[in-house]
Every structure is written in C-alpha cells, then in structure tokens.
C-alpha cells in the first residue's frame, strides 16, 4: 500500500518518540496486568497458607511487587500520554513543513486551486487527522503485541504449552480481526468522507441560494434532498459505529472466554498436580488482563479507511519525498548586481490570454512598456484585466503570442529571478497574520525600520498609525482584520514600493480608499511609477496623469 509507505516517510522524524510511547503504553498495560495477576496469586497463596496448606510463604516480595506495579502503572501512563503527544506534535510540525514545502514547489498555475477556502480548510484538516495515526492506530497494535509476547513467555515458564497457545491464539484472532476490519473499513470510510463533501456542496447551495430557492419555489425540493442526505449519512455513521462497538465488545468477550477457559484448564492441571493453585489463578487473571490491550484494536483499524483517504488527498497535493531544507541563498535579498538584464524591457507581441485556448479572453495585444510612461488599463470587470496581469507576471501561461523581458522570453526566467524584476500587486489584498514589519519585509529582510516608515509615509499611513499608537511591531491580525480595508490596501502598496522592482504591475491599487486618501497616495505613487516600467489597472483612469498612455479593454 503506497499510502503506508508515504506515511512512514512522514513519521520518520518522530521514530524514537513513537517507539518510546509504544514501550510506555506496553509498560502501562503490563503493570495493570501484573497488578491484577500478582494480587490474585497473593490472595490465593495467603488463603492456602492461612488454612495451613502452604508451609512457607514469603509475603514481602509479592506485596512489594504489588506496590511497585501500582506505581509503575501510574508513572508509565503519564509518560505514555506525554511522550505520545510529543511524537504527535513533532509529526504535525513535520507534516506542516513537508506539505508547505511540497506546495511551494508546485508551479504557480497548480497552486491556483489552493485559493479556494474549502480546499485550504480540508488540507489543514487532513494534516490534523494524519498526525494521530501513530497514537491511535499503530501504537496500540505494537504495544498489544509486546504485552501478549510477555504474557505468553510467562505462561511458557509457569505452565504446560497449552496455556501459552491459548494466549497466542486469542491474540492472533484479535489481530486477524483488526486486519480484516482495516480492509473492510476502507470502502465505507471513503464513502463517508465523499458523502460529507457532497453534502457540503448541497449545503452551500441551500444557505447561499436561499433567496432564489424561495423565489422560484424550490425550497422544499432542496430541503427534502438535504434530509435524505442527512439520513443516508446517519445510516452510514450508525453502521460504522455498530462495527466499532461490536468489535470492541466482541474482542472483550473473546478475551474473557479465553480467561475462563484458561481457568478451567489451569484448575484441571492443578487437580492433576501439574501446577500450583496460585499459579493457576495468576495465569487466568493474566489472560483476563489482556482485555485492556486488545479490546480497542479492531475498531481503531476499521476507521483507518477515513485516514487513508486523507493521506491520498495529501499525496495528490504534495507528492514525493520531503523537500530538502532550503538553501540560504534562495532567501537572499536581491543585490544590485542581480538586477536583471541591462534593459528590463517588457515587450508584448500578439498576446492572447485566458484559461481555455478555445476561448481566449483577450487577443492580439501588442504593446511595449516604456520607462516613465506607465500604461493605464481600464474597462469593465470580467474583461480579463486581472487575467492579463497574471499573464504579464508569468503566473499564467499565455495562450499564444509572446512576452519578452529583457532579451529573453518571460517564461524562460527562473521564478525567483522573474519576481526580482517584476513587482505585482494583485486586486485582492493579502496580508499575513504577523507584525506590520514582517509583512513589509517579506523577501526584503535587509530593510531597516527607517525605510519601512518612509514607505508608510509615502502611502499616507505613517501618521494615522502613529496617532493610533501603533508601530511596526503590532500585529495586523488574521487576514489583516485589525486594519481597515483601506489601511490594509495601503500596507500592500507600501510592500510593493519597498520591493523597488524595475517593472511594476498594479491591479486596482486604490480600491477601498476614499477620494482624499487616494489623492494623497497618488502624490507619492506617481513619481514612483514614472521611475519604472509599470502597468496600472483602474476603474478611475481620470485621476491619473493625462499624458500616460491608455488602453481600454
């Protein structure tokens, strides 16, 4: 199974922690079994001694053993919890790093899929499911095998081979049931996850399209469909839970019956004089104690199907081996020497853009970006302006035609060099949940605070921030929500200006700004744009200098 191989590579980093957690779990169970079995042995032996049937009995060693078992049980349980979660969280860290690295290596057009909020949520959810597999599924299996082997070894030492065979047979049946459950559970698990996705789509349509459903009289059809889906999903859940419950109680029953059989067998041997009575009780309680170790196995393995579905999705998104640690020079700020070809000329020749070669959105575009003469593009939305900027930035391959940057075609520049020449401010403002300084310094770790403040002044934000008592080290909040929409937009503008790239592409740079602010921002922005080659997309071209060339789509 390729999913398992993939998981093994992910879990490699936490192997020692996992092994320690498994051992501690086995020790916890072992101490529990030992406590009960030793107590049984002790009570039986003292009863015989009290009745004068046993002549010499060392009472201190077993009672010390009972105390030791009680303490080991406590400490091992605590250790197993802490160490196990240490392993889980290490795996989580590794999974996140690995998934992010793998996604970062994808070409830009593949990453587009990840702009969907639902997919982002699912990816995060999948990762959170995977980190617990060692703790919930593999761990108990390994620890149970260890506990069973120790129990069987004890049985061999104390009694005829039949006792050990009984223990091993019971364990083998349980493990076989767990494996069968894992195989059988895959399909229902997958079906459950897929039905969940289908239901989510139907719900988004219901809640999002409520007005249309009411207006056009489709409300009750949709409600009925949702009810049917909910009922089918409840049936699936019930049958899953039924298997889990039956497996758990079935295994407990199996182990209890084995313990009773062991009791019968041992008492029979006792009557024949093969073993002593305390040992007979000890072996029976030992078998009974395996309950704790074995009962949860088949249920946990039955649910593995759902986790494997998550593995498959993650694998599809982030395939292959974990990425090597990034080399430091990849992260280095651009130095003047790298500043690209002597002429950062941008020439567009017979360009067609769009997503589908059969239906280009824009065709036959022909222009050259001149320094000092930014190109202003306007036109109604949906005419492909954003699509054109994505193509000019090299994030979307042209459907036909040619874009040249310097003396080479745009696509032939490696990505990190391309973004050194091209600064791109897209229509939607994205900020990271970190400090203001962090956001401004992205990719330009070399900038000092003075430079950052100067850029904030240029976009008319410095005074407003100072008035509010905010500084560079204040957090902008998740998706920038601690800033107003206009403030966030201006932070993004400052980010663009700090990049100081010879080519700049701006998509609706003033959206969310009121007229006064826009005027203030323009004061700083116009000379900045005239100092480079730029394309600026806007609905309000009238506010930009009249001598800049224009193109209406």
């Amino acid at each position, binding site marked *: 199974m390729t999913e398992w191989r993939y998981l093994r590579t992910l879990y490699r980093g936490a192997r020692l922690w996992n092994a320690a957690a498994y051992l501690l779990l086995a020790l916890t169970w072992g*101490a529990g079994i030992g406590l*009960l079995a030793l107590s*049984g042995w*002790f*009570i*039986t032996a003292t009863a015989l*001694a009290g*009745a004068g049937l046993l002549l010499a009995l060392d009472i201190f060693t077993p009672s010390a053993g*009972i105390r030791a078992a009680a*303490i080991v049980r*406590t*400490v091992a349980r*605590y250790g197993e919890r*802490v160490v196990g979660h*240490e392993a889980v969280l*290490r795996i*989580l*860290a590794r999974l996140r*790093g690995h998934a992010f690295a793998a*996604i970062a290596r994808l070409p830009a057009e593949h990453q587009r899929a990840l702009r969907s*909020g*639902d997919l*982002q949520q699912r990816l*995060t959810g999948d990762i959170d499911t995977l980190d617990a597999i060692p703790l919930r599924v593999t761990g108990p299996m390994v620890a149970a095998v260890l506990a069973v082997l120790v129990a069987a070894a004890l049985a061999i030492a104390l009694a005829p081979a039949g006792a050990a065979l009984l223990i091993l047979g019971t364990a083998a049946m349980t493990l076989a049931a767990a494996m069968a459950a894992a195989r059988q559970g895959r399909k229902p698990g997958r079906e459950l996850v897929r039905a969940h996705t289908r*239901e989510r*789509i139907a*719900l*988004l349509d219901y*809640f999002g*399209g*409520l007005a249309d*459903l009411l*207006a*056009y009289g489709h409300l009750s059809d949709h*409600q009925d469909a949702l009810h049917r889906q909910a009922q089918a999903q*409840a049936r699936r859940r019930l049958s899953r*839970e*039924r298997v889990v419950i039956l497996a758990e109680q079935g295994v*407990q029953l199996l182990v*209890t019956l084995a313990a*009773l059989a062991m009791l*019968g067998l041992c*008492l029979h041997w006792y009557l024949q004089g093969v073993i002593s009575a305390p040992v007979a*009780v000890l072996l029976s309680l030992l078998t009974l104690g395996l309950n704790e170790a074995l009962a949860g196995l088949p249920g946990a393995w039955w649910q593995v199907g759902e986790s494997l579905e998550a593995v498959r999705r993650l694998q599809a998104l982030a395939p292959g081996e974990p990425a090597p640690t990034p080399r430091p020079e990849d*992260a280095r700020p*651009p130095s003047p020497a790298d500043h690209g070809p002597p002429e950062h000329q941008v020439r567009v020749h017979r360009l067609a853009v769009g997503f589908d070669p059969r*239906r*280009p959105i824009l065709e036959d575009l022909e222009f050259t970006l001149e320094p000092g003469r930014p190109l202003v593009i306007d*036109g*109604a*939305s*949906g005419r492909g302006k954003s699509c054109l900027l994505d193509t000019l*930035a090299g994030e979307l391959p042209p459907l036909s035609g040619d874009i040249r940057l310097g003396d080479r075609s745009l696509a032939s520049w490696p*990505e990190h060099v391309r*973004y050194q020449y091209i600064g791109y401010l897209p229509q939607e403002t*994205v900020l*990271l949940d970190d400090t203001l300084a962090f956001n401004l310094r*992205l*990719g330009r770790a070399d900038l000092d605070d003075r430079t950052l403040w100067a850029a904030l002044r240029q976009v008319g934000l410095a005074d407003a921030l100072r008035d509010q008592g905010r500084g560079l080290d204040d957090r902008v909040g998740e*998706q920038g929500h601690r800033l107003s929409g206009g403030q966030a937009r201006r932070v993004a503008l400052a980010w663009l200006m700090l990049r100081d790239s010879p080519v700049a592409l701006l998509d609706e740079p003033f959206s969310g700004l009121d007229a006064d602010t826009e005027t203030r921002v323009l004061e700083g922005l116009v000379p900045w744009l005239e100092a480079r080659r730029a394309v600026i997309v806007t609905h309000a071209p009238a506010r930009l200098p009249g001598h800049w060339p224009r193109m209406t789509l």
Partner: protein
Amino acid sequence: MYPHRRWLHGAWIAGLGAGLATVAVAGLVAHLIHGTLFAPGDTALLPPLILAMAAAVLRHGLQAVRDGCGQRLALAVQGDLRARLIASAGHTGPVRMAHRGHAGQWAGRYQDQVEALGGYYARYVPARLLTVLVPAVILATIFRLDWLAGALLLLSTPLIPAFTALIGMGTEQVHMRQQEEQNRLAGHFLDRIRGLDLLRRSRALASAQMDVAEAADRYRRLTLRVLRVAFLSSAVMEFFSAVAIGLVAIYVGFGLLGFVEFGPAPGLTLFTGLFVLLLAPEYFSPLRRFAQTYHDRAGALAAAQALAPLVDQGAASARAPAWDRHHQGPLLRLEHVTVRHEPDAPATIRDLSLDIHPGDMLALAGPSGSGKSTLLAVCAGFMGIEQGRISARPEARAFAWIGQRTHLFHGSVRDNLRLARQTSASDRQLEAALEAAGLPVDDPALPDGLETRIGEGNRGLSGGQAQRVALARALLSGSRLWLLDEPTNALDPLTEEALLDTLFHHASSRKITVLMATHQPNVLARFPRILHLPAGSVRENGRD
C-alpha cells in the same frame, strides 16, 4: 433530546444489567476457585465455568446494547437538530440569515458543530448516571462481602474528582497565559497557505518554509506545556485506582493469613477475597470511561454555543405574516406595517403603508440600516411582520429576486437557468435569455456554453456576469414582479451602468413591476418614484 429518551433509558438499563452480569462473573469465578481448592471432591469444574461464560456473553452483549443505544441517541438528536436548522433557515429567510453568517459558516454549523455534539450524547450523557449506578451496585456487593474492603475503595473515590478538579484549574491557568499565541500558531499553517501567492511574489517561499516549520515547533512546545499538566489527571486516576486495588489485595492477603484482627477480617475466605479483588477494577472502570468522555462535553458546550442563536430564534419567526393572497386591489398593499429583526430590538420599519400597482418602478432609498432590504424581504414574504396587514394579488406570489451577489448553484449554467422555470425550458430559450441578459452563450466566460460548470465561489464568472445570469433567470421565470436588493452594489461603475441599462430595458418593455433597494444617486436617478426610508414617504423623482 426529550423525544429520544427511550434510547437513553435503554442505555441505562443495558449498562446496569451489564454491571450485574459483571458481579455474577466475578462471583462465579471466585466460587469456582474457592471450591476447587478447599472442597475438590464436591466441586465440578464445568457447570460454574459454563455459567460464568454465559454471564460474560450477557455482560458484553448488554454493553454493546448500551453503546448502541448511546449512538442511536446521538444520531437522533443530531438528525432533529439538522432538520430544525434547515427548516428555520427557510422561515428566517435569506436576509436575516445572511446577517447571522455567510453560507460557509452555516454549512460548518450544520456539519461540524452538530457533529461535535455526537460524543456528548453518545457517551457522556449515558455515562453520567451509569458512573454512579454501576459503582454503587459493585460497592454494595463488596460491602456485603467485607465492609472494610468496601470502605477502602469508597475512601479513595472522592480523592479522584478532587485532584482532577485541582489539575483542571492548573491546566486552565497555563492555557490562559498562552492561549492567544497558541491559537495563532495553530492557524499559522493555514495563514501561510492563504498567503502563498504573496510569498511567491515576495520571493519569500523558502524562508516561509522554515517559518512554517518553526511555528509548528513553537506550537508543539506551548501545547505540551499545557498537556504536561493536563495529563496529570489521568495519572491521578491511575494512581488511586491502582493503589486502591493493591491495598485491597494486601489487606485481603494479610487478613487471610490472620494478621488483621479487627472488623470483618477474621471471617475472610478465598471466595470473598477473590470476589472483592475481581470487582475492584470494575468499580473504577466506569469512572475511567467517564473521565475519557469528559472532553466530549467541552466540545459539545462550544458547539452548543454556536448553535444556540438558531434554536432561540424559533419564537421570532413563528409569527405568521398577515398575508391576504386573494385580494383584488393593487398588486401589493402594505397597511401600517411594523417589522422587527429581533423581538426586543427597535423596529426596523414602523407603521409603513404603501400601494404598489402593476408596472410600477419604485426605488427604496435610504442610508444603510434604514430598512430597505427588510422591506424588500417583507414584500417577498421572506420575513414575517409584527403588526399591520399585507394584501397581494395572486400574481405577486411569483417574483424574481436579485441580491447583491448572486449565488450560482453547483452544476452547469443550464442547471442554474432551469432553476427559474418549473417546466423545463429548451436550450434555445435558455440561450435567448442569456443573450437578452447580456451574456451571450459564446462569451469567453462560458467556454462550454450551457454545459459550462460553475464551481465554488462562482468560479470562472465575474461578479457582473453572475448578476447577468441572475437577470437571465428572472427573464426566464416570466414573473411580473422583480425584487432587487442593491443588485449592482458589488460592481464597478462601468459594469454597473451596463447591467442597469439591460435591466431597465427589459423591465420597461415587458411592463414589469420593479422594487429596487439602493443608496447610490446614479441608480436612483433612473427611477420615476422613490420611497425614502426610514421616513416612508414616496416622492416623484426630481421634486424633493
């Protein structure tokens, strides 16, 4: 939960029965061992063994029934809650629903929050009573056998919740101190995935990669700091149960040897000793199960908080709108209508009277919050009214609705258009409607024509194009009444004008009655009559 009590009762009865069967198994085993050792001649091995096996079958069968009943209870409660959510969304109507969260949030509440209640009903609720009942039965048995052993177990019991509560407080303290940072680090990965494009354009992907790994590592350290304290409670649980079992064993052993002179100890036999020993772990096992289900409760409480507004609002929407659907006057007549969003909120619309005649074109103007959208929702029947009367001609029942952002349903463009027509329309009619709405079927935005799939977030169509699909739907529906809730609000000025041109062209050539909420002067200028809210006065346009 009340209609599903039978499942809860079933779980209780089965759980109690399983407890009794457990006592029986322990007693039979103790009896068998005692008999074999001290009266070997009189004790047959097989009959008690088979009886014990039968009791074990009963025990685990009943436990399966107990857990199955718990699951049934959870699924029944969840099913009810989901049905209620769906129905109440229909009553509440799109306008008020949108106030309370976007579609994704509602879908999350329906699926995830309701799911989070599962463990609470399946395990925690049945366990609450059984955690008292089953140990009580076992303890009573032990007291009858040997009260001193019973007292040992009983004394250790209150210590467990006491220490657990102490540890819980300690955990809370650690958690509070670092909650904010912990939450932020938990969301760090998602945040950076959202920022992928930004990171790529900043040439910061490589450093972000290290950043993600570092944040995950910091998250691990913070979380473990909390867990190291929290896990003490499971250690306490183990400690007291293990020590209690060990104490019982040592007490019984020394009693059997005759070292304990007081109380019931001299009367101890192997039978009572083994019986007590076998019952001791069973005494603690419901407590342990309960401790494990305790986090189900925390999850359920959080979920219940998110779901509560929906359950409470039942009363607000229950009021039936005073609709008269068969009158013969104007198309729509509102008399002294008063509307409130919430029962104790100030009235959004107060004592409004209005006549709308066929072919009227009326703009609803006013600042945001003045009740424009509310009035439209009332005319659509999406919202009940508190006072007053609404009369409508039968043809006002069929109306077309276009909101700020049109929702496009998952499926093809054809599916989306067919929604508006009860009888199926031919492809030619659909294409004609699209053409009339200004989105011809050979537009680049529709690469597969009517077959073009529209996915999440209206993928592939711009906001203006989505509004045009909505307009095509309105045209197809043949409705004589259009209710438009700021349909061009999310569009840029150029797109807005183009869409309004198309809209007005069709409305006036087909003599359609139009009510449109808007606050933009350029849109208002197109209407002959304007209703100003919150005042409620109608003015002819151009004469203030």
